[in-house]
Protein backbone atom coordinates (compact mmCIF):
# COMPACT_ATOMS: atom_id res chain seq x y z
CA UNK A 1 0.00 0.00 0.00
CA UNK A 2 2.98 2.25 0.64
CA UNK A 3 4.23 2.16 -2.94
CA UNK A 4 0.76 2.88 -4.25
CA UNK A 5 0.33 5.92 -1.98
CA UNK A 6 3.70 7.18 -3.14
CA UNK A 7 2.76 6.73 -6.76
CA UNK A 8 -0.50 8.61 -6.31
CA UNK A 9 1.18 11.56 -4.62
CA UNK A 10 3.90 11.73 -7.27
CA UNK A 11 2.76 14.59 -9.48
CA UNK A 12 5.71 14.65 -11.85
CA UNK A 13 4.30 11.99 -14.16
CA UNK A 14 0.66 11.42 -14.96
CA UNK A 15 -2.22 13.52 -13.71
CA UNK A 16 -3.43 14.90 -10.40
CA UNK A 17 -4.23 12.58 -7.42
CA UNK A 18 -7.98 13.01 -7.90
CA UNK A 19 -7.81 11.53 -11.39
CA UNK A 20 -5.60 8.67 -10.22
CA UNK A 21 -7.94 7.68 -7.40
CA UNK A 22 -11.01 7.68 -9.63
CA UNK A 23 -9.23 5.69 -12.33
CA UNK A 24 -8.33 3.00 -9.80
CA UNK A 25 -12.02 2.38 -9.14
CA UNK A 26 -13.31 2.68 -12.67
CA UNK A 27 -10.82 0.47 -14.52
CA UNK A 28 -12.08 -2.79 -13.02
CA UNK A 29 -15.63 -2.00 -14.16
CA UNK A 30 -14.47 -1.19 -17.69
CA UNK A 31 -12.53 -4.45 -17.99
CA UNK A 32 -15.47 -6.53 -16.76
CA UNK A 33 -17.82 -4.77 -19.16
CA UNK A 34 -15.47 -5.38 -22.07
CA UNK A 35 -15.14 -9.08 -21.27
CA UNK A 36 -18.96 -9.36 -20.99
CA UNK A 37 -19.48 -7.84 -24.42
CA UNK A 38 -16.93 -10.17 -26.00
CA UNK A 39 -18.25 -13.35 -24.40
CA UNK A 40 -21.97 -12.75 -24.96
CA UNK A 41 -21.52 -11.62 -28.54
CA UNK A 42 -23.91 -14.20 -29.92
CA UNK A 43 -26.81 -13.38 -27.58
CA UNK A 44 -26.78 -9.58 -27.12
CA UNK A 45 -25.45 -6.82 -29.38
CA UNK A 46 -21.70 -6.48 -29.39
CA UNK A 47 -19.22 -9.05 -30.56
CA UNK A 48 -15.48 -9.31 -30.78
CA UNK A 49 -14.69 -5.92 -32.33
CA UNK A 50 -16.57 -3.69 -29.91
CA UNK A 51 -15.39 -5.63 -26.86
CA UNK A 52 -11.78 -5.60 -27.99
CA UNK A 53 -11.80 -1.84 -28.49
CA UNK A 54 -13.37 -1.34 -25.02
CA UNK A 55 -10.59 -3.39 -23.39
CA UNK A 56 -7.94 -1.44 -25.28
CA UNK A 57 -9.43 1.84 -24.12
CA UNK A 58 -9.07 0.64 -20.51
CA UNK A 59 -5.33 0.31 -21.10
CA UNK A 60 -5.24 3.74 -22.75
CA UNK A 61 -6.96 5.24 -19.69
CA UNK A 62 -4.37 3.64 -17.40
CA UNK A 63 -1.49 5.02 -19.47
CA UNK A 64 -2.96 8.52 -19.64
CA UNK A 65 -3.61 8.74 -15.90
CA UNK A 66 -0.46 7.17 -14.49
CA UNK A 67 2.25 7.70 -17.06
CA UNK A 68 3.99 5.45 -19.53
CA UNK A 69 5.80 3.18 -17.08
CA UNK A 70 2.58 1.89 -15.50
CA UNK A 71 1.08 1.12 -18.91
CA UNK A 72 4.22 -0.69 -20.04
CA UNK A 73 4.41 -2.71 -16.84
CA UNK A 74 0.92 -4.15 -17.29
CA UNK A 75 1.57 -5.40 -20.80
CA UNK A 76 5.08 -5.14 -22.19
CA UNK A 77 5.95 -4.77 -25.86
CA UNK A 78 6.76 -8.42 -26.43
CA UNK A 79 3.57 -9.36 -24.62
CA UNK A 80 1.44 -7.19 -26.88
CA UNK A 81 3.14 -8.53 -29.99
CA UNK A 82 2.66 -12.14 -28.83
CA UNK A 83 -1.02 -11.61 -28.03
CA UNK A 84 -1.67 -9.95 -31.37
CA UNK A 85 -0.12 -12.74 -33.40
CA UNK A 86 -1.65 -15.54 -31.35
CA UNK A 87 -5.12 -14.02 -31.74
CA UNK A 88 -4.83 -13.96 -35.52
CA UNK A 89 -3.37 -17.48 -35.56
CA UNK A 90 -6.18 -18.84 -33.39
CA UNK A 91 -8.78 -17.43 -35.75
CA UNK A 92 -7.18 -19.13 -38.74
CA UNK A 93 -6.88 -22.43 -36.84
CA UNK A 94 -10.58 -22.34 -35.98
CA UNK A 95 -11.27 -21.93 -39.67
CA UNK A 96 -8.96 -24.73 -40.67
CA UNK A 97 -10.49 -27.07 -38.11
CA UNK A 98 -13.71 -26.73 -40.05
CA UNK A 99 -12.20 -29.06 -42.61
CA UNK A 100 -13.07 -31.94 -40.28
CA UNK A 101 -16.73 -31.25 -40.98
CA UNK A 102 -16.72 -30.51 -44.65
CA UNK A 103 -15.48 -27.13 -45.76
CA UNK A 104 -13.52 -24.06 -44.58
CA UNK A 105 -15.10 -22.38 -41.50
CA UNK A 106 -17.64 -25.13 -40.99
CA UNK A 107 -19.29 -24.86 -37.60
CA UNK A 108 -18.13 -28.14 -36.13
CA UNK A 109 -19.05 -27.98 -32.44
CA UNK A 110 -22.52 -28.75 -31.13
CA UNK A 111 -25.31 -26.20 -31.41
CA UNK A 112 -26.92 -26.31 -27.98
CA UNK A 113 -30.04 -24.38 -26.94
CA UNK A 114 -30.33 -20.71 -27.86
CA UNK A 115 -29.91 -17.94 -25.22
CA UNK A 116 -27.22 -19.88 -23.35
CA UNK A 117 -23.57 -18.94 -23.06
CA UNK A 118 -22.30 -22.26 -24.41
CA UNK A 119 -24.23 -22.45 -27.63
CA UNK A 120 -23.76 -21.68 -31.32
CA UNK A 121 -20.78 -23.90 -31.93
CA UNK A 122 -17.51 -22.18 -32.68
CA UNK A 123 -18.88 -18.63 -32.68
CA UNK A 124 -17.84 -17.74 -29.06
CA UNK A 125 -14.31 -19.06 -29.67
CA UNK A 126 -13.96 -16.92 -32.78
CA UNK A 127 -15.26 -13.91 -30.81
CA UNK A 128 -12.59 -14.42 -28.15
CA UNK A 129 -9.84 -14.69 -30.77
CA UNK A 130 -10.95 -11.48 -32.49
CA UNK A 131 -11.27 -9.68 -29.13
CA UNK A 132 -7.73 -10.57 -28.06
CA UNK A 133 -6.34 -9.52 -31.42
CA UNK A 134 -8.05 -6.13 -31.55
CA UNK A 135 -7.08 -5.32 -27.94
CA UNK A 136 -3.41 -6.01 -28.48
CA UNK A 137 -3.31 -4.16 -31.81
CA UNK A 138 -4.91 -0.94 -30.61
CA UNK A 139 -2.90 -0.84 -27.40
CA UNK A 140 0.38 -1.42 -29.22
CA UNK A 141 -0.26 1.30 -31.80
CA UNK A 142 -1.12 3.76 -29.03
CA UNK A 143 2.12 2.99 -27.19
CA UNK A 144 4.18 3.34 -30.37
CA UNK A 145 2.61 6.72 -31.21
CA UNK A 146 3.12 8.13 -27.72
CA UNK A 147 6.70 6.92 -27.30
CA UNK A 148 7.65 8.19 -30.73
CA UNK A 149 6.58 11.69 -29.77
CA UNK A 150 9.25 12.10 -27.13
CA UNK A 151 12.02 11.68 -29.68
CA UNK A 152 10.63 14.49 -31.81
CA UNK A 153 10.81 16.95 -28.92
CA UNK A 154 14.26 15.96 -27.81
CA UNK A 155 15.65 16.21 -31.33
CA UNK A 156 13.79 19.20 -32.72
CA UNK A 157 14.27 21.45 -29.72
CA UNK A 158 17.24 19.88 -28.08
CA UNK A 159 16.31 20.62 -24.48
CA UNK A 160 14.43 18.68 -21.85
CA UNK A 161 10.86 19.54 -22.78
CA UNK A 162 8.61 16.78 -21.51
CA UNK A 163 5.53 18.07 -23.27
CA UNK A 164 3.45 14.91 -23.57
CA UNK A 165 -0.30 14.43 -23.62
Amino acid at each position, binding site marked *: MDRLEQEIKDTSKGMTPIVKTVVRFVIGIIVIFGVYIVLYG*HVTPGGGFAGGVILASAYVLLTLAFGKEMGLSKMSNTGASLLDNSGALMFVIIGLLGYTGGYF*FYNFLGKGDPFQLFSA*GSIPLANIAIGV*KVTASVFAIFM*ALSIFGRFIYKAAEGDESESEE
Partner: protein
Amino acid sequence: MEIILLFLMAFMIIGSIIAIETKNLLSSVISVGVVGFSLSIVFLMLGAPDIAITQVVVEILILVVLIRATITTDNTAIEGPRDSFPFVSSLIFFGLFLMFAFFAVQELPKFGEPLMRVSSEYLRTGTEKTGATNIVTAILLDFRAYDTLGEATVLFTSIVGAFVILRRKGRKGKREIDQEKFGILEDEDIKQNFEGF
Protein backbone atom coordinates in the same frame (compact mmCIF):
# COMPACT_ATOMS: atom_id res chain seq x y z
CA MET B 1 -39.21 9.43 -37.33
CA GLU B 2 -37.94 10.89 -40.52
CA ILE B 3 -38.07 14.39 -39.06
CA ILE B 4 -35.63 13.42 -36.32
CA LEU B 5 -33.31 11.78 -38.87
CA LEU B 6 -33.41 14.91 -41.04
CA PHE B 7 -32.60 17.11 -38.06
CA LEU B 8 -29.67 14.92 -36.99
CA MET B 9 -28.24 14.84 -40.51
CA ALA B 10 -28.48 18.62 -40.81
CA PHE B 11 -26.64 18.82 -37.49
CA MET B 12 -23.91 16.56 -38.86
CA ILE B 13 -23.52 18.67 -42.00
CA ILE B 14 -23.20 21.87 -39.97
CA GLY B 15 -20.62 20.19 -37.71
CA SER B 16 -18.52 19.09 -40.66
CA ILE B 17 -18.66 22.56 -42.21
CA ILE B 18 -17.20 23.89 -38.96
CA ALA B 19 -14.57 21.15 -38.97
CA ILE B 20 -13.46 22.00 -42.49
CA GLU B 21 -13.40 25.78 -42.36
CA THR B 22 -12.02 26.70 -38.95
CA LYS B 23 -8.44 27.84 -38.64
CA ASN B 24 -7.58 26.25 -35.32
CA LEU B 25 -6.60 22.58 -35.63
CA LEU B 26 -7.78 21.60 -32.16
CA SER B 27 -11.32 22.89 -32.68
CA SER B 28 -11.66 21.08 -35.99
CA VAL B 29 -10.68 17.79 -34.32
CA ILE B 30 -13.34 18.37 -31.66
CA SER B 31 -15.93 19.07 -34.37
CA VAL B 32 -15.11 15.74 -35.99
CA GLY B 33 -15.82 14.16 -32.62
CA VAL B 34 -19.24 15.82 -32.51
CA VAL B 35 -20.03 14.48 -36.00
CA GLY B 36 -19.06 10.95 -34.93
CA PHE B 37 -21.18 10.94 -31.80
CA SER B 38 -24.29 12.18 -33.59
CA LEU B 39 -23.64 9.49 -36.21
CA SER B 40 -23.89 6.84 -33.51
CA ILE B 41 -27.28 8.25 -32.42
CA VAL B 42 -28.44 7.98 -36.05
CA PHE B 43 -27.28 4.34 -36.11
CA LEU B 44 -29.31 3.62 -32.97
CA MET B 45 -32.45 5.10 -34.50
CA LEU B 46 -31.99 3.02 -37.65
CA GLY B 47 -32.20 -0.23 -35.66
CA ALA B 48 -28.50 -1.18 -35.48
CA PRO B 49 -27.32 -1.43 -31.84
CA ASP B 50 -24.13 -3.37 -32.67
CA ILE B 51 -22.88 -0.62 -34.92
CA ALA B 52 -23.82 2.11 -32.42
CA ILE B 53 -21.67 0.52 -29.68
CA THR B 54 -18.72 0.06 -32.04
CA GLN B 55 -19.02 3.59 -33.45
CA VAL B 56 -18.94 5.22 -29.97
CA VAL B 57 -15.78 3.47 -28.77
CA VAL B 58 -13.95 3.76 -32.10
CA GLU B 59 -14.83 7.46 -32.20
CA ILE B 60 -13.16 7.99 -28.83
CA LEU B 61 -9.98 6.29 -30.02
CA ILE B 62 -9.99 8.30 -33.27
CA LEU B 63 -10.13 11.47 -31.17
CA VAL B 64 -7.18 10.31 -29.03
CA VAL B 65 -5.04 9.48 -32.07
CA LEU B 66 -5.90 12.73 -33.90
CA ILE B 67 -5.14 14.87 -30.85
CA ARG B 68 -1.83 13.06 -30.57
CA ALA B 69 -1.06 14.16 -34.13
CA THR B 70 -2.26 17.73 -33.54
CA ILE B 71 -0.20 18.61 -30.47
CA THR B 72 3.04 17.67 -32.20
CA THR B 73 3.62 21.31 -32.90
CA ASP B 74 3.00 24.08 -30.43
CA ASN B 75 1.06 26.49 -32.61
CA THR B 76 -2.22 24.98 -33.75
CA ALA B 77 -3.22 27.65 -36.23
CA ILE B 78 -3.10 27.56 -40.00
CA GLU B 79 -1.77 30.49 -41.96
CA GLY B 80 -1.45 31.42 -45.57
CA PRO B 81 -3.71 32.63 -48.34
CA ARG B 82 -6.14 30.35 -50.10
CA ASP B 83 -5.06 28.68 -53.36
CA SER B 84 -7.61 29.50 -56.00
CA PHE B 85 -7.26 26.76 -58.62
CA PRO B 86 -8.08 23.64 -56.51
CA PHE B 87 -10.89 25.51 -54.79
CA VAL B 88 -12.72 26.60 -57.95
CA SER B 89 -12.17 23.40 -59.90
CA SER B 90 -13.34 21.20 -57.06
CA LEU B 91 -16.46 23.32 -56.60
CA ILE B 92 -17.36 22.95 -60.29
CA PHE B 93 -16.70 19.21 -60.31
CA PHE B 94 -18.63 18.49 -57.14
CA GLY B 95 -21.52 20.63 -58.30
CA LEU B 96 -21.79 18.47 -61.42
CA PHE B 97 -21.53 15.31 -59.31
CA LEU B 98 -24.34 16.39 -57.00
CA MET B 99 -26.57 17.25 -59.92
CA PHE B 100 -26.20 13.77 -61.39
CA ALA B 101 -26.48 12.16 -57.96
CA PHE B 102 -29.87 13.80 -57.44
CA PHE B 103 -31.24 11.96 -60.46
CA ALA B 104 -29.42 8.71 -59.72
CA VAL B 105 -30.81 8.50 -56.20
CA GLN B 106 -34.37 8.29 -57.56
CA GLU B 107 -33.53 4.87 -59.04
CA LEU B 108 -32.75 3.27 -55.68
CA PRO B 109 -35.52 1.39 -53.83
CA LYS B 110 -37.71 3.74 -51.83
CA PHE B 111 -36.43 4.57 -48.35
CA GLY B 112 -38.02 2.08 -45.92
CA GLU B 113 -38.74 -0.77 -48.35
CA PRO B 114 -35.52 -2.74 -48.88
CA LEU B 115 -35.29 -5.59 -51.38
CA MET B 116 -34.00 -8.25 -48.97
CA ARG B 117 -33.75 -11.26 -51.22
CA VAL B 118 -30.81 -12.91 -49.45
CA SER B 119 -31.44 -11.44 -46.02
CA SER B 120 -34.91 -12.91 -45.63
CA GLU B 121 -33.31 -16.35 -45.89
CA TYR B 122 -30.77 -15.37 -43.23
CA LEU B 123 -33.50 -14.08 -40.93
CA ARG B 124 -35.73 -17.10 -41.43
CA THR B 125 -33.17 -19.88 -40.94
CA GLY B 126 -30.43 -18.13 -38.96
CA THR B 127 -31.25 -19.30 -35.46
CA GLU B 128 -31.88 -22.94 -36.23
CA LYS B 129 -28.86 -23.33 -38.49
CA THR B 130 -26.27 -21.70 -36.26
CA GLY B 131 -27.82 -21.62 -32.80
CA ALA B 132 -27.02 -17.93 -32.23
CA THR B 133 -29.78 -15.44 -31.52
CA ASN B 134 -27.88 -12.35 -32.69
CA ILE B 135 -28.32 -12.58 -36.46
CA VAL B 136 -25.63 -9.96 -37.21
CA THR B 137 -22.96 -11.96 -35.33
CA ALA B 138 -24.19 -15.14 -37.00
CA ILE B 139 -23.71 -13.53 -40.41
CA LEU B 140 -20.27 -12.13 -39.46
CA LEU B 141 -18.86 -15.32 -38.01
CA ASP B 142 -20.73 -18.14 -39.66
CA PHE B 143 -22.38 -17.29 -42.95
CA ARG B 144 -19.67 -14.85 -44.04
CA ALA B 145 -16.67 -15.77 -41.93
CA TYR B 146 -14.33 -15.38 -44.89
CA ASP B 147 -14.93 -11.63 -44.94
CA THR B 148 -14.04 -11.45 -41.25
CA LEU B 149 -10.77 -13.24 -42.00
CA GLY B 150 -10.01 -10.61 -44.65
CA GLU B 151 -10.81 -7.83 -42.21
CA ALA B 152 -8.50 -9.29 -39.54
CA THR B 153 -5.75 -9.43 -42.16
CA VAL B 154 -6.23 -5.79 -43.17
CA LEU B 155 -6.13 -4.65 -39.54
CA PHE B 156 -3.00 -6.69 -38.88
CA THR B 157 -1.25 -5.33 -41.98
CA SER B 158 -2.01 -1.69 -41.19
CA ILE B 159 -0.74 -2.01 -37.61
CA VAL B 160 2.49 -3.71 -38.73
CA GLY B 161 2.93 -1.01 -41.39
CA ALA B 162 2.56 1.74 -38.79
CA PHE B 163 5.25 0.07 -36.67
CA VAL B 164 7.68 -0.14 -39.57
CA ILE B 165 7.22 3.57 -40.25
CA LEU B 166 7.82 4.53 -36.63
CA ARG B 167 10.98 2.50 -36.27
CA ARG B 168 14.27 4.01 -35.09
CA LYS B 169 17.27 2.50 -36.82
CA GLY B 170 17.87 -0.59 -38.94
CA ARG B 171 20.59 -2.90 -37.72
CA LYS B 172 21.70 -2.64 -34.17
CA GLY B 173 23.77 -5.71 -33.59
CA LYS B 174 23.87 -5.97 -29.86
CA ARG B 175 20.26 -4.87 -29.15
CA GLU B 176 17.41 -7.30 -28.84
CA ILE B 177 15.18 -7.85 -31.81
CA ASP B 178 11.88 -6.93 -30.18
CA GLN B 179 13.18 -3.61 -28.88
CA GLU B 180 14.25 -2.79 -32.38
CA LYS B 181 10.83 -3.70 -33.76
CA PHE B 182 9.06 -1.23 -31.49
CA GLY B 183 11.75 1.41 -31.77
CA ILE B 184 12.19 2.00 -28.06
CA LEU B 185 15.63 3.03 -26.88
CA GLU B 186 16.83 3.90 -23.44
CA ASP B 187 17.29 7.51 -22.46
CA GLU B 188 21.04 7.73 -22.70
CA ASP B 189 21.18 6.53 -26.31
CA ILE B 190 18.93 9.22 -27.74
CA LYS B 191 21.62 11.77 -28.51
CA GLN B 192 23.97 9.22 -30.08
CA ASN B 193 21.59 7.05 -32.01
CA PHE B 194 19.00 9.51 -33.23
CA GLU B 195 19.21 10.15 -36.93
CA GLY B 196 16.59 10.91 -39.54
CA PHE B 197 15.39 8.48 -42.17
